[in-house]
């Protein structure tokens, strides 16, 4: 029975992709839009924050680093609940009318992955800052120029940091199902569709969607890596 489902899943996954199933394309498109937007927000907020923590000494920095690192383990369902309570019409941000829209899902995923981007950026930049410390000191480089130089030189490692954030965002279901509501043609993404098909007992279709999701993650990672490879080769040319 299970093995049959397994074989059926691969056949279904292939069939769905080959047929360019309209619903599937819509769901994939929304998954990508939401998660890439969340990565963008996390990059804008998390990278400077991580760089700041890595390069600037201030009281309480140690605690801040520990907190950011701990927040990498935020449970998606808790984030979903908090964002729901904030965005609900009975909550403080209800006037935004974000609840049950892709905007709410972007907010939730951004909260989820900004700590990941910030914490990993801090580690990457701190290691590099250590290497560059003498040079910076001898040239008396101001702090903002220093951060810009470090981010620019660490860009390949930071691309991987963003991929880690993207991976977490595209794979989570706990937050988006609460704040998005898994509404057909509006807020249904890959993971919530998988949860729905599982609850209908259609395990083969659920797994087929899972296979498509894996291939999607693979494609995004391959695209970033090839971008990086071509950038590297042109820089060395």
């Amino acid at each position: 029975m299970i093995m049959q489902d397994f074989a059926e899943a691969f056949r279904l996954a292939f069939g769905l992709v080959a047929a360019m199933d309209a619903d599937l394309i819509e769901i994939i498109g929304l998954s990508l839009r939401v998660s890439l937007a969340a990565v963008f927000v996390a990059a804008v907020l998390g990278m400077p924050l991580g760089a700041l923590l890595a390069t600037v000494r201030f009281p309480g920095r140690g605690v801040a680093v520990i907190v950011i690192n701990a927040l990498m383990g935020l449970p998606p369902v808790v984030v979903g609940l908090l964002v729901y309570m904030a965005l609900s019409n009975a909550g403080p941000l209800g006037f935004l009318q974000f609840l049950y829209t892709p905007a709410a899902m972007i907010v939730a995923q951004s909260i989820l992955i900004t700590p990941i981007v910030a914490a990993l950026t801090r580690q990457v930049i701190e290691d590099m800052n250590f290497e560059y410390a003498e040079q910076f000191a001898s040239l008396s480089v101001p702090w903002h120029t220093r951060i810009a130089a470090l981010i620019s030189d660490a860009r390949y490692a930071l691309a991987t940091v963003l991929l880690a954030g993207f991976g977490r965002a595209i794979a989570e279901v706990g937050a988006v199902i609460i704040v998005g509501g898994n509404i057909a043609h509006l807020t249904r993404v890959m993971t919530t569709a998988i949860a729905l098909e599982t609850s209908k007992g259609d395990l083969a279709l659920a797994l087929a969607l899972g296979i498509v999701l894996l291939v999607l993650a693979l494609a995004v990672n391959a695209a970033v890596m090839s971008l990086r490879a071509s950038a590297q080769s042109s820089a060395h040319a």
Partner: protein
Amino acid sequence: MKTIRSSFLIAIALCTSMVFAALGQAEEQSIIVQSTTSTQNSGLFDYILPIFQKSSGIRVDVVAVGTGQAIKNARNCDGDVLFVHAKPAEEKFVSEGYGVKRFDVMYNDFVIVGPPADPAGISGYSGAAASLRKIADTKSTFASRGDDSGTHKKELSLWKKAGVDVNAASGTWYRETGSGMGATLNVSVGMAAYTMTDRATWIAFRNKGGFKVAVEGDQLMFNQYGIMQVNPVRCPNVKASAARRFVDWIITRPGQSAIAGYKLDGQQLFFPNAARQGAS
């Protein structure tokens, strides 16, 4: 260096446009209906909502959760219409001023499904309380929703009728999944446990694993669905006129015949019984 910079710029531009694309909602008239998993998982909404949208131009977005959570969400004004199946809780919702007026919409029934081996020997019973007592006496595994849903509330009322204290047995033969109907059915099949489900979800369920309906036909297992508008006085954000049009549609002939027209494998899943049927 230049290619890197330009590719970064392109990436940023792409992401920005995605944020705006995701934020910009199509300005089409739509309402949010807080409803239950049984109506969604059975495929009913996929069948009737396009019919309503075609005649009214209003898109209905369904948030399908357990009845308990649906009511809670509606109390927070996060929805325009409530469409669930737990009459006492619905009447409380209306009497406390959260809903406008409750209408009967349709019914089906609950059934107790179980493993083919039938360890409690209840196959063919029609008395709900008697079969539950037998399950308890034989300590046969039973999976409960345990999630404050309409089905869960009904199941607890039947245990009470049977005179069985399930709280005392929780974690032994009585297992609360704390999940939706579909997830609970998956668990039941996985551990060969009896469970109670609405008939629509059961018929549409694809992972039956040899499970069969063991008990059906008791008046006590009647499953009534009700609909009501979220009160615009309490929740100024609700789209009152569109919500009223949906409620009116579903309790009059067009909506009622759409419900009756939904069949799966030749079986009708929900039976319309709105009092106002045929009135308009």
